[in-house]
């Protein structure tokens, strides 16, 4: 099973590279032209040389057989050579590394927060049946399901940033703090990340609550719950170690898919908050047809989802003793 997972991952990465290969090869001529123009002026080389170099780099119009071009393209990517961004005039890889931490920060906090809160509320709703909480869970999940995540972000922006002015409108930290490991910077970072995190969390927590409620309800029918009650265990312990620990397993398997969805939606949410993560730059790259940047960030997103998938699998095998690593 582990082999199957790795095979699918490798497959997926190659599929993504093939997609970007096709994309880059079909790059419109005017974009190559402007890229070459930029290269020529920044490096002080003749335009013709720069033009040929750009074409060679992306394999556009090359006479080599297709598979050779593809091989060269893939080899370039593995060497970390993704070309320069047309818009920002710096290597794509540098933009990737500067954007990645922000997306990782916001997404990791959001996913943990929404999953944990959703799991707790969902378990409670199943544990204390026929209460107000149960109707709340259903209503909340329907409403957030009906609201696209970027609209949640817009609503938060309008209320908390534009009107109440409690949170900043854009950016990842204040310009007057020095980046580094100091309290001022960390506070500024969290302050700026707050609304994006809330947007993801508010949007995703409903689904987790619903999933967890369904899972916990079915676990409640299991013999070992009745057995635990008969053994006179304390309610808290039953709810956490017996109900919660088992009920969390099925929702946990959906974690990887959720992370994929969140990464996919980051272009919209990060754009709303002008938050300089992968999605924000990706949105810009696509809108401005900055092909090198587009392909770099797209590959990064794909690799990110795959890594998240493998991590979720690894964690799952630690949560469920019946599953060996990679199964």
């Amino acid at each position, binding site marked *: 099973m582990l082999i199957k997972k790795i095979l699918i991952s490798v497959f997926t990465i190659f599929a993504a590279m093939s997609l970007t290969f096709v994309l880059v090869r079909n790059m419109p001529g005017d974009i190559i032209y402007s890229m070459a123009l930029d290269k020529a002026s920044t490096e002080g080389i003749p335009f013709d040389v720069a033009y040929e170099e750009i074409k060679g780099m992306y394999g556009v119009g090359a006479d080599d057989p297709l598979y050779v071009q593809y091989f060269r393209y893939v080899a370039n990517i593995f060497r970390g050579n993704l070309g320069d961004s047309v818009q920002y005039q710096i290597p794509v890889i540098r933009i990737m590394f500067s954007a990645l931490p922000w997306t990782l920060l916001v997404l990791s906090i959001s996913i943990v927060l929404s999953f944990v809160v959703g799991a707790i509320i969902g378990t409670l709703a199943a544990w204390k*049946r026929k209460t107000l909480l149960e109707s709340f869970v259903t209503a909340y999940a329907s409403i957030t399901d009906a609201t696209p995540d970027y609209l949640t972000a817009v609503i938060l922006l309008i209320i908390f940033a534009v009107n109440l002015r409690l949170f900043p409108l854009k950016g990842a930290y204040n310009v007057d703090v020095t980046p580094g490991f100091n309290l001022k910077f960390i506070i500024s970072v969290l302050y700026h990340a707050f609304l994006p995190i809330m947007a993801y969390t508010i949007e995703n927590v409903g689904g987790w609550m619903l999933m967890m409620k369904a899972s916990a309800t079915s676990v*409640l*029918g*299991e*013999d*070992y719950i*009745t*057995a*635990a*009650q*008969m*053994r*006179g*265990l*304390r309610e808290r*312990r039953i709810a956490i*170690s*017996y109900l919660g*620990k*088992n009920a969390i*397993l099925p929702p946990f398997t959906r974690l990887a898919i959720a992370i994929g969805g969140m990464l996919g939606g980051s272009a919209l949410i990060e754009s709303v908050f002008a938050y300089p993560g992968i999605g924000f730059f990706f949105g810009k790259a696509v809108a401005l047809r900055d092909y090198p940047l587009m392909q770099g960030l797209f590959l990064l997103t794909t690799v990110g989802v795959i890594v998240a998938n493998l991590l979720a699998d690894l964690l799952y095998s630690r*949560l*469920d*003793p*019946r599953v060996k690593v990679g199964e």
Partner: protein
Amino acid sequence: MEILNIEDLVVDYEVQEGILRSVNHVFLKVRKGEFMAIIGESGCGKTTIVQAIFNVMPSNGYIRQGRILFNGTDILSLDPESQRRIRWEKIAAVFQAAQSSLNPVLKIKDQVIDTVLDHRQMPRVEIFERAGKLLKVVGLEPDRVMNSYPHELSGGMRQRVVIAMALLLDPELLILDEPTTALDLITQAQLIETLQHLHEDLSITMLMVTHDVSNVAKVADRVAVMYAAQIVEVGSVESIFYNPCHPYTIGLINAIPSVVGDLSAKKPIPGTPPSLINPPVGCRFHPRCPYASRLCREKAPELIDMEPDHIVACHHRLDVKRLQHEVI
């Protein structure tokens, strides 16, 4: 002296088709130190009685009336915390489907520790020592079992673990709900032997609930026969097996297949158990009873003393008894 005294217990389930009365005005006494058995077909309400004793009804089950006196105090009237304290400290149980009564994501040792610590303050070393001793009693290797997850043990081993766990807190009463179902014949025999030893060595009061009449004959001192949510006959194991006075009891005993005897001698009771949503009027057994008369169709019989320590709910108990002896 009764350790457990169930008085006029009524339990209903609310199901889609209506109200299913699973336990209908049941009276039952278990004496200190004895091995009592409740027998009856599946679905007759035996397990519901066990659930009511622990007050752990499924969400659609309701205890409508009755008292469950344990050493004279009504368990059902106690506050939740006191009820929780009685569970396992005083009354422990080996459940039906003990196979699945262990938490799959916790090691056996963690489940043992949970169980002890929620009732007593005890250092871990002592808990391990005690659990180890009990696991040996039920014939298991303590070290291996304690460090295993439930799925790493066989069905028979899990059953033994559950029995050992039931003895952790020295309960006064041990309830066994179909302890042998889902086990193969050899394991069943071993288990019954273990239970018998426990009963004799530790002098624990046992209440076994089962449909397996042959096991009851082996281990029980007294037997209660249950049919369609009601108790129909209670007596010593001898009087139930040699001198049954309820036609249903006779049917149950005759239905035991005998290894030595002719297979055709096995006589299943004709018909099927009645619906508990719309039970028959009068005696609930009358549609299947060869002795049924108009009286049986109109009036439900009460439990009446036949002889000392032997009660029966049948209008024709005397005829049944006489005929039974003539046949033999």
